[in-house]
């Protein structure tokens, strides 16, 4: 699997390259500035891009903008965005086109190599990987909602919803909660019924529906 990596700090870039290579990814390019990233994304056609939000030369949200631009040119181009901080605002922009193949994680998540690599693979496959912090913010906002549809969920269902919104498959959720996949499937259909969402067999579409539901304005 070919990866384009954009990170301006040498130590982190180097570490990420080694981490990804250790898991048999092929590093097509490891760049450090926005313009380089734009070129790499256009010319190298990677399977997935791992991009830091803040890049030179402006040190603003250059990386995020590059990723969004590239996805406009090539809809569905898998991009995993990394940052020192997560903002719902950015998550919303990344998810806006509704095509999936998007990840948005705190840099801390690379500490857990297994999970991080899993997120990269998921995004490359057109799935979603949202940082638990983003999801928690979304959930706490919705929990303060007046008619509180989330209040009708059981604690277990909330837990499943949270993991589902992060982009995990039923199998992964089952493993994490140490239950059978059938149990998770049952929870999932309950959640969808309680929130009034349409059930979909497609994992990706399911995640996007949940995220759209959580992020809608009240």
């Amino acid at each position, binding site marked *: 699997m070919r990866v384009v990596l954009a990170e301006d700090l040498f130590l982190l870039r180097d570490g990420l390259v080694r981490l990804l290579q250790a898991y048999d990814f092929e590093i097509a390019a490891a760049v450090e500035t926005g313009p380089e990233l734009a070129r790499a994304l256009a010319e190298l056609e990677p399977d997935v891009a791992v991009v830091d939000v803040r890049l030179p030369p402006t040190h*603003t949200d250059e990386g995020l903008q590059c990723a969004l631009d590239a996805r406009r040119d090539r809809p569905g181009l898998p991009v995993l965005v990394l940052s020192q901080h997560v903002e*719902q605002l950015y998550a919303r922009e990344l998810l806006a086109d509704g095509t999936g193949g998007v990840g948005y994680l705190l840099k*801390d998540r690379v500490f857990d190599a297994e999970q991080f690599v899993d997120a990269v693979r998921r995004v490359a496959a057109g799935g979603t990987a949202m940082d638990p912090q983003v999801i928690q913010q979304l959930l706490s906002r919705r929990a303060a909602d007046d008619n509180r549809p989330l209040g009708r969920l059981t604690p277990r269902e909330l837990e499943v919803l949270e993991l589902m919104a992060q982009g995990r498959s039923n199998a992964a959720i089952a493993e994490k909660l140490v239950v059978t996949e059938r149990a998770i499937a049952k929870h999932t259909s309950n959640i969808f019924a309680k929130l009034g969402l349409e059930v979909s067999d497609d994992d990706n579409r399911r995640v996007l529906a949940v995220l759209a539901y959580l992020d809608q304005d009240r």
Partner: protein
Amino acid sequence: MTTEAKNGSGSGNGGTRVRGVARAALRGLGLALVVLPGAVTCFVLSVVSIALIPVGVGIVTTPWVLTGVRAYADWRRVLAAEWCGVPIPSAYRPLPKDANPWTRTFGMLRDPATWRDLWWLPVDMTAGFVTALLSAALLFYPLEGFAVAAGLWRVLPDGYWYGFVHVTDQASAFGAATLGLALLFFTPFLTPRLLEGHFRLARAVLTSGQGELAERVRVLTETRRDAVDTSAAELRRIERDLHDGAQARLVAMGMDLGTIEVLVEKDPEQAKRLLAQARQSSAEALTELRELVRGIHPPVLAERGLGDAVRALALRLPVATEVSVELPGRVDAPVESAAYFAVSEVLTNAVKHSGADRIWVDLHHTDEGGAVLRISVTDNGRGGAAIGAGSGLAGVERRLGTFDGVLAVSSPAGGPTMVTMEIPCALS
């Protein structure tokens, strides 16, 4: 900054003009009635009190008397601004709060503003009194002329003079009325001017010519002190947070790693456990640093500017918040940061205390009357917010002061609450 139209000399329709003139005349009358006894009392008390200083009694009484004089002068300053739009800056030197009578007395006497006050009192009781009285007389004297013509002349003592008209019979009474009419012709023009003249006179005597400058210096000194205090406190807080937080965790991590080095062959199980602990420590250190950075300068502010930073902030609130932004450019970095934290504080206040279920934030930049960043935060909560001591709003006001920014709160009981902030600034 003048409110010329207020006193009726500006253009307007007939009704408001008449009302304006009548109001000016009544105000003049009121002033004349208060000015003479007020100024005389203040002046006499001041002179006596200062004269008694060598005896000792004066040291105790002078601060009281001079404070009274200042209150009297300040009252006139307020009237000047409210009635005629004549600003008279108040530029007394601040006195230490817990000073003894001695320092208070001599502190006050060393202040040139005190001597300007004392010089103003005799002017006020003479020229000030006359201008105020004249502005009233110009309306009431003609009215008396009409009254004389209408029959009042019959009860007046013989040989009553109305102006230069000797009133003896109905014919001469009509003469008086004619004179009154002629006078009345000037009234709409002169009465407001005289009243304004009264305040301009007070301003001429009360300000040193450098009064506005002195006031500006005072404000700058105060806001600078606030800014220095706040930033020192901020640095202290950051130092403490780093010292007790991230730094301590890194020490713990280093220690764990050292232990792991020793244990890795002797007791691999224990080494693994410590490794997990070290990783946990590093994750916690990162979380703490992230929070700290957010408190110093939120990354989204650096990345996106004020508008999106406030939008991102709104998305974190538990209350539904609508943000509208109209900023055609980036605001200067220091102003941006101050504005962000001001909005953040006001929003936190609204969420905590108002009980609102909706908040609206409006951010826009206008060039009308100087380039200004205007921010309003409105909630539909229970109201009753005030810029009191110790409230978050007072802190916001102080911090905005560094940028010559101002804050106004409108929060009637029952709501809604609207906090408006204005900071002069240009866009880049």
